[in-house]
């Protein structure tokens, strides 16, 4: 069986591509860090890549194009302008897209998430805007898996499972305009699009600091109606190994093993690779 081919997108300002790449690599996928220019074709012949040759597109975290204008806005505009058609085909083929942190902001800016409009790539319906604290929130958060089985990135992860992973963003407040808030939230719930919500360590919804940015309804991650596009603010790639957890040395000293060598983030990478390899068999 061919290994799953993964495109980890890079442009100026992305800074989580290496961790993301290594996470997928560790699980046996054929991951590659690809610069946007390589997909557009503005490079030498041997460096050119085609988006359609990949099975999964990942937009990693960071500060693409310096977060100018708004976080993710410039990368979103560049993808929409230069790769719009190819990306639409990619989605039509049912190939998954993952956006972590800045990647989530890009997907929202492109209108791919929550994807409630008729046009696939269109206008924004929600926003990820400045944290209520007006600070860069950089620390571990707890998120609860809320999906009932729609999202391919969390298939197999138990509903209600609490995961701990770091967040690191200044613009992560999931915001729906007041006029549409109730209708959208109802739709998101009905379409099974809410994937993660911020909670306290016990798994109860709680306000700041547990909800680091003031997101509407504590939303930390959502997928599109078909479940193949996931965006989330916390960083699963920064929780791939157990030793990346800030509590790990203390836990180890106390002699608590707590789940072995891997952290909570691994499950997300595993789930999508399982989905893709199952698809290859069919």
């Amino acid at each position: 069986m061919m290994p799953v081919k993964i495109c980890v997108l890079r442009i100026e300002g992305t800074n989580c591509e290496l961790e993301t790449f290594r996470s997928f690599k560790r699980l046996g996928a054929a991951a590659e860090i690809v610069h946007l220019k390589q997909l557009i074709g503005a490079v030498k012949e041997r460096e050119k890549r085609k988006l359609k040759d990949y099975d999964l597109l990942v937009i990693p975290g960071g500060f693409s194009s310096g977060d100018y204008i708004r976080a993710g806005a410039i990368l979103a505009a560049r993808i929409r302008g230069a790769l719009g058609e190819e990306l639409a085909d990619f989605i039509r083929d049912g190939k998954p897209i993952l956006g972590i942190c800045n990647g989530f902001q890009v997907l929202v800016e492109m209108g791919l998430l929550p994807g409630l409009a008729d046009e696939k790539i269109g206008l924004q319906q929600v926003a990820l805007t400045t944290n209520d604290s007006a600070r860069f929130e950089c620390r571990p958060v707890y998120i609860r898996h809320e999906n009932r089985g729609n999202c391919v990135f969390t298939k197999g992860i138990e509903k209600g499972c609490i995961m701990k992973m770091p967040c690191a963003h200044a613009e992560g407040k999931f915001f729906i305009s007041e006029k549409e808030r109730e209708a959208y939230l109802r739709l998101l719930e009905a379409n099974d699009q809410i994937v993660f919500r911020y909670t306290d360590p016990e798994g109860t919804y709680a306000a700041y600091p547990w909800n680091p940015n003031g997101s509407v309804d504590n939303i930390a991650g959502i997928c599109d109606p078909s479940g193949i596009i996931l965006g989330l603010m916390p960083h699963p790639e920064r929780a791939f190994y157990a030793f990346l957890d800030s509590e790990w040395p203390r836990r180890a000293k106390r002699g608590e093993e707590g789940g072995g060598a891997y952290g909570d983030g691994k499950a997300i990478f595993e789930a999508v690779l399982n989905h893709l390899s199952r698809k290859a068999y069919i």
Partner: protein
Amino acid sequence: MTVEVEVTIKLKRGVTDPEGENTKKALNLLGFKNVHSVKSMKTFRIAIDADEGGSDVKYEVEEMCKKLLANPVIHDYKISVVR
């Protein structure tokens, strides 16, 4: 003919403006007790080629706002021709 256009992007009413609120707090702490509201906004000054009269410019800049400069969920924008 080159026309210069100023685009001001500001947050819609009802959207919290943490940057403005924090600036207000800081100004109050500095002794400016009479400051009771600060709003943050962003201005772009765009030089653009246009034919005489410059009638299409406003339309074009509006497209720019829709496609990149503003997010309609949280932003209002104002376009004014400077010269």
